[in-house]
């Protein structure tokens, strides 16, 4: 009887999985995982029938943790791994290997009705740290500034602190959003709102990008590193990727993958 049940279970398992299917588990950054990586996966699947993807975009911290824990093949991250994470990986016999996926430029957005014409880097720091709390203090109309940021597990959250806030803490009343799209949506609804999003999310409705020191973010300024809020985005793997994960990493950094990256709003690495 036991042998019969075992045979039935095995048959069921085979029935729900395509023959020769290979699954790639990808976890981490919302910056990469909301748009770019799903589109890359679709194209990859079209070229490699039978490959399946399990993508969870819940923040860079979760992506790096997944590589350390061995629960993902690829960890998406919009920030570099921290020394503590590298140490934790070593302690578990893992080797965090970064691969640059594409470059991203973060920009400051406000509601399209906001009369503000531009900001300095110092003013950006003052706003997001809470040193300045009213638009009138920086040349805008009177009104309390509403700050929208990514949540704490996001690589963008810590990248912004490093790039724009001299590593200081965010203002107490800042509201934490699950993704760039949510930040853009909230700022679009709130005339006093301000936030930051990646290049891929700057065309959302109801918002406008604010010039910083008189300049606007662009693919060119990100690539030549003149934009102050530019950063690379990463795949992290345990050492050199293997099998289908390696194929997907190579696909991402190859011509087709980079073309998709550019189309989505990132800055290609080549």
């Amino acid at each position, binding site marked *: 009887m036991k042998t019969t049940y075992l045979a039935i279970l095995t048959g069921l398992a085979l029935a729900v999985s395509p023959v020769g299917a290979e699954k790639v588990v990808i976890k981490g950054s919302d910056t990469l995982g909301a748009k770019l990586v799903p589109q890359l996966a679709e194209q990859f699947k079209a070229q490699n029938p039978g490959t399946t993807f399990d993508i969870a975009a819940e923040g860079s911290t979760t992506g790096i943790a997944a590589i350390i824990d061995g629960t993902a093949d690829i960890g998406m991250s919009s920030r*570099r791994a921290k020394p503590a994470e590298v140490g934790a990986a070593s302690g578990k016999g893992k080797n965090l290997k970064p691969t640059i996926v594409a470059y991203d430029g973060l920009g400051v957005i406000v509601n399209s009705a906001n009369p503000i014409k531009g900001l300095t880097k110092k003013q950006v720091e003052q706003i997001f740290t809470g040193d300045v709390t009213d638009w009138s203090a920086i040349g805008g109309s009177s009104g309390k500034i509403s700050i929208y940021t990514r949540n704490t597990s996001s690589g963008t959250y810590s990248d912004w602190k490093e790039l724009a806030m*001299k590593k200081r803490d965010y203002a107490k009343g800042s509201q934490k959003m699950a993704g760039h799209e949510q930040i853009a949506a909230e700022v679009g609804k709130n005339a006093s709102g301000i936030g930051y999003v990646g290049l891929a999310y700057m065309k959302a409705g109801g918002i406008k990008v604010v010039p910083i020191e008189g300049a606007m973010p662009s693919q060119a300024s990100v690539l030549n590193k003149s934009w102050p809020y530019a950063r690379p985005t990463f795949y992290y793997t345990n050492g050199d990727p293997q099998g289908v994960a390696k194929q997907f990493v190579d696909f991402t950094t190859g011509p087709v993958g980079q073309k998709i990256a550019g189309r989505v709003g990132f800055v290609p690495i080549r």
Partner: protein
Amino acid sequence: MLRKYLVLITMAASLIAGAITAPAQEAGALLDLLVKKRIITDQEAEEVRGELNKEFSQSPAGKMKLSTPLTELEIYGDARVRYEVRNGNSGPPGTLVTNPNDAQQRNRHRYRLRLGLRGTLVDDWFFGLRLETSTSNRSTNVTFGDDAGPFGKTSDGAFIGQAYLGYSGFRDIRLTAGRIPNPFVTTSMIWDGDINPEGFSQQYKHTFNLNWGGGSTDTAASEEYSKDGKSAAPAVSEPSTMAIDLFANFGQFVYDDNNPENPIGAPAVSGGRRVPENDAYMFGYQIGAKFNFTKTTYFQLAPTFYHYSGYGNDFNTFFNGGPNFRTTTVPPVTVTPNQTGINSLFVFNMPAEFGFSIGELPVRLFSDFAVNLDAEDRALAAGRPDKDDERYAYQLGVGIGRIKTKGNWQLNVFWQHAEQFALDPNLVDSDIFDSRVNMEGVAVQAGYALTDAVTVNLTYAYGEQIDNTLGTGGVGDIGVNPLREYQLFQADLNFKF
């Protein structure tokens, strides 16, 4: 790939040479430059960063996690083992002493440990914490074998010696609150070096660079400012210059807390006098200057006023300072007059120091002078209005050599004279004259550096009672008052880290 490994080896070597004090992120500027110069690609730079991060995470420094607001952290401290002999003679009969012509000698093996942590935070805030052995306010020594044992640990505790926070964001100004390092320029005649007052301090220091010409710089006078005070005024050639460090130090210390200030019931009365029920505060005001004539020749003067407000819980009896005396013979009842009162103390103090060098040998002449401007009232309260002229204290000394590195030596010799109503006996150095006033004598201190971190020090002091009709006010280690004669010998081995 070869370039990546070359870069990795080079950067790893530089980090290791620097005791791996910075993670890979700190090497970011160099990697960015290499990328910009197209020597390596971004991807190669990231791989190098990752490798360096891995190396760093496995180093001792990489295993330590520090909070983000911290910009600098320093661990420091010192340890000392000491052999000490102190001896006090009570003097001949005829004076009001309990044991005439007797002496008390204390030979002690002692150690001390001080372990500190100080750091700076973002936006010009700073903090400090120091653990010290001993509960004493004027000593960090623990005596070997003085507790239940053998080898008990009752007296071997660690206590908070310093715990303070402060702000240095205003130009030239440093504000500190807590249990703080003594903010004043001072000597052991006024303040024991182990005392860390509790309260607040405000310190100002500014360097003025004066130029009288003679070089190619034509600015008559220029000012400089830097937060670390390390920058130097530029000079094309060598004009005649002098730097003046102008400084001001102010302190407001909670000397003794009295609680409750308004107790239930009738006010306490002692000796027909209502016992004050308020906190005791000590205030200090110092304005001084250091005239740096050359790199090795200077003169420093730091006039200071100290005064007190209130009496606290433990200092509400007037100071007497008189000798111990017996009221009965059988059974013997000994009375010790008050030795700690802080009434009528308004002290003007002026430490001064002149430094120069003879060849390569640094020499300094130092002095301290103090006068209690309220000594008349203090003497009157002690029942000795005839001694209201016992109001002066002074110290004169010479120091030769300076210990900085291995092989350096130093010799200090000074004479000190402190009259009965001149100073606060609760603050004066606890070693040189056993925490007493109405004492004068000589002290000799010699030191030699065995290494950059280890020094040997020897101290000898000899003191005598100044006025034989008065006690030697203050509470010291020798249980005799008056101290007709006093001798001290200390041999120290110091470790500084």
